């Protein structure tokens, strides 16, 4: 099977059984792979309402047909599972070489089910698969784990592992692979609950394509467009110094939630952070496998209180969340916090956001020193933050509570706390404030409806189509593509754009490529991907069909969420994002506020356009059948009857 390795590796951890299954060509045709195929597997195999940290949850590592090929940005693998943070659809994408290596070893998917009693790691070397003891690795930080595994296995093996945070079932624990993180949704905790410390892969095979000549000519076309951009091929990707280059202009536009979302910018701080990071702390750049952009950055703090060894990042989100969100001006402390989160294996966004939330509660007097184990949680107090990060990872004291995520902490504190909490469905909001974005109110729709909760990148940023360079590059025409509206504050066109980008995003999640290449250039669009997939797999897929696949995946994941109890009431956004900023240059701008009526109107429009029921947000049977999901519709109807 061209483009695919053709095998699913299924590991029953309870009974220590290893099984190989052939890939289902029909499902591959419908869902391609990655998050789409993963959604199909989880829909079929997971019972509703299982405990995400129990034996019945499954953890899937999924690759797509383009993973491991020469298509730029093809170093992708997606972890699919039921999220312990949101109790609904959980997925997390990462680079780091694991995906291509897995395909070279001969597997498209690894399904981990059941749970081991003792700590183990999975060793995959081509046909040789073993469940090995990991007692000596349990408790180790990620860098030490990777070092030890490379020493005892293969120095060129690719590894996905969890740190102490995952072992201690921190609900936003990440799975780290080669310094890159599958951070969001708490996949690390799912692995921790199964007592799987790591998955080590080494493959000596290859990925073949159906039509090599046509495939390589498309790749070369893309490379040609990319080579003209300063963001590619220079080590300066994505836009200068990696994602942290967004800091200055996002701050200017008012895109960075500041002081836990009270405002949407911290005047001048973004530019200052960027300058300091670039001039003083960045030491080099690197790349994921097969990538032409090299957005990976390395930094270190040589000396002083925040001395930090060479580490990945910090990425934009990390700087904004450990900086703006908690009013911290110390860049060295940000790098250190980023390092700690990576080493302990935690999502920097959720971790920083939860701590910032605790700071706000402390500031308001809802919690005090007694609750925080004596820690002074004043704004920007990075000494306390450092302590807290460690305590969260180790599950100690107040950290143990914070490790449950913002939603649960807010419920515990009670009172007004849930009203100010920045999360959707339990997933903490990243550093993208709708009150300043190009796409404006489209962000409300995206945050409210994204299947994994409050997320900027899953399935896709609505900003993508709003950004003039992308839409012009695509030669957008009215009717052909969703209309591009110039005014972020109106409701016009926002729903259309969101739906289009969500479908496109989910198609990409299923292809097995990095979405970052979209922002650099319009070289990648549904047309390019359709060609690449067709030439790789030998299936004939048109751009329209590709978008349909994206829609199918999005709907299936929605059905998964419906089965977990998600309804229209859960499609909400944090109240803070509906109000005008409390301070800062945009505080007088009433256009930046969004009323409940406006939000409701957008959701009505959204459900209608999606073919979902307006009152409940449940996909209609007609829509599901139209997407070829007849069996899903039947099962969903049966489930809805029962409850």
């Amino acid at each position, binding site marked *: 099977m061209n483009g695919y390795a053709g095998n699913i590796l299924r590991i029953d951890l309870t009974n220590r059984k290893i099984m190989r299954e052939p890939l289902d060509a029909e499902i591959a045709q419908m869902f391609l792979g990655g998050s789409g195929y993963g959604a199909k597997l989880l829909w079929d195999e997971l019972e509703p309402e299982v405990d995400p940290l129990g034996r019945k949850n499954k953890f899937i590592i999924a690759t797509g047909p383009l993973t*491991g090929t020469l298509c730029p940005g093809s170093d992708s693998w997606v972890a699919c599972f039921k999220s312990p943070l949101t109790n609904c659809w959980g997925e997390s994408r990462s680079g780091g070489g694991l995906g291509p290596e897995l395909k070279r070893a001969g597997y498209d998917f690894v399904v981990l089910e059941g749970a081991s009693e003792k700590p183990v790691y999975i060793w995959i070397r081509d046909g040789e698969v073993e469940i090995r003891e990991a007692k000596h690795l349990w408790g180790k930080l990620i860098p030490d784990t990777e070092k030890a595994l490379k020493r005892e296995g293969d120095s060129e093996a690719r590894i996905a592992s969890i740190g102490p945070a995952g072992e201690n079932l921190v609900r936003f624990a990440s799975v780290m692979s080669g310094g890159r993180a599958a951070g969001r949704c708490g996949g690390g905790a799912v692995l921790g609950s199964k007592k799987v410390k790591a998955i080590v892969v080494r493959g000596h095979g290859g990925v073949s394509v159906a039509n090599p000549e046509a495939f390589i000519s498309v790749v070369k076309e893309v490379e040609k467009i990319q080579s003209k951009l300063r963001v590619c091929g220079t080590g300066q990707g994505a836009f200068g110094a990696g994602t942290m280059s967004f800091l200055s202009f996002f701050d200017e536009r008012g895109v960075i939630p500041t002081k836990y979302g009270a405002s949407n910018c911290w005047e001048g701080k973004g530019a200052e952070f960027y300058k300091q990071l670039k001039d003083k702390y960045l030491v080099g750049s690197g790349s994921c496998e097969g990538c032409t952009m*090299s957005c990976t950055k390395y930094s270190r703090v040589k000396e002083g209180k925040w001395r930090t060894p060479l580490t990945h990042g910090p990425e934009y989100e990390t700087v904004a969340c450990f900086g703006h969100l908690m009013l911290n001006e110390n860049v060295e402390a940000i790098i250190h916090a980023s390092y700690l989160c990576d080493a302990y294996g935690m999502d920097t966004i959720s971790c920083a956001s939860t701590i910032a939330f605790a700071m706000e509660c402390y500031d308001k007097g809802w919690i005090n020193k007694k609750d925080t184990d004596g820690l002074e949680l004043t704004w920007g107090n990075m000494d306390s933050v450092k302590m807290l990060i460690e305590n969260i990872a180790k599950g100690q004291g107040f950290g143990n509570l914070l490790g449950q995520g913002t939603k649960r902490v807010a419920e515990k504190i009670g009172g007004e706390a849930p009203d100010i909490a920045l999360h959707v469905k339990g997933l903490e909001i990243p550093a993208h404030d709708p009150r300043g974005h190009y796409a404006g109110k489209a962000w409300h729709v995206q945050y409210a409806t994204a299947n994994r909760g409050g997320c900027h990148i899953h399935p896709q940023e609505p900003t993508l189509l709003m950004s003039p360079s992308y839409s012009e590059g695509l030669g957008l025409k009215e009717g052909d593509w969703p209309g591009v509206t110039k005014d972020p504050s109106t409701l016009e066109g926002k729903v259309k754009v969101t739906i289009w980008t969500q479908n496109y995003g989910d198609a990409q999640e299923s292809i097995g490529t990095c979405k970052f290449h979209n922002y650099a250039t319009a070289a990648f669009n549904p047309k390019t991907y359709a060609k690449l997939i067709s030439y790789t797999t030998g299936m004939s897929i048109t751009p329209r069909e590709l978008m349909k696949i994206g829609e199918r995946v999005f709907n299936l994941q929605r059905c998964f969420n419906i089965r977990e109890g998600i309804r229209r009431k859960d499609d909400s956004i944090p109240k803070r994002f509906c109000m005008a900023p409390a301070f800062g240059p945009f505080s007088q701008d009433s256009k930046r506020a969004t009323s409940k009526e406006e939000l409701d109107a957008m959701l009505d429009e959204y459900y209608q356009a999606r073919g979902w029921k307006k009152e409940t947000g449940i996909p209609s049977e007609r829509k599901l059948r139209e997407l070829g999901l007849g069996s899903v519709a039947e099962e969903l109807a049966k489930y809805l009857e029962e409850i």
Partner: protein
Amino acid sequence: MAKAKVLAVVPGICKGCHRCELYCSFYHFEIHSMFLAGLRVRSANVNGAISVPSICIDCGRCMEACPIAGAMKRDPKLGIIKVTDKCTGCGQCVPACPFDLIRINPDTRKAVKCDCCDGDPECVKHCPYHALVYVDVDKAIEFTIATRLI
């Protein structure tokens, strides 16, 4: 006769994207495989913060180790050692390579070794960062000395 050209690495540029290896195996075998590539990107320190392509410098040890006459031959025009049809895949050249760059292709049962793509190396053409060059021997000296010291 034109001066012999060789592959060389420009130090300090490689980002570790492995596209050279993918292009190499794709050009020769129409497959994306690190295993079947004639060069290797080696990474060290915190998940590849330092990456260096390891290339064939044509030292000739593989040919010395080869037990079959004519299985490895120096191309008179390009000056590089090439694997011929006589190769039986015995594998004696594999441990002889000081840079661990030779593999036996399990399908063809022949040694896989850099052949500079007959004078137009794919790895050089497609490195997004221009970390590889194909230059006259005289010019290459400065690059290769620096690379070997790393």
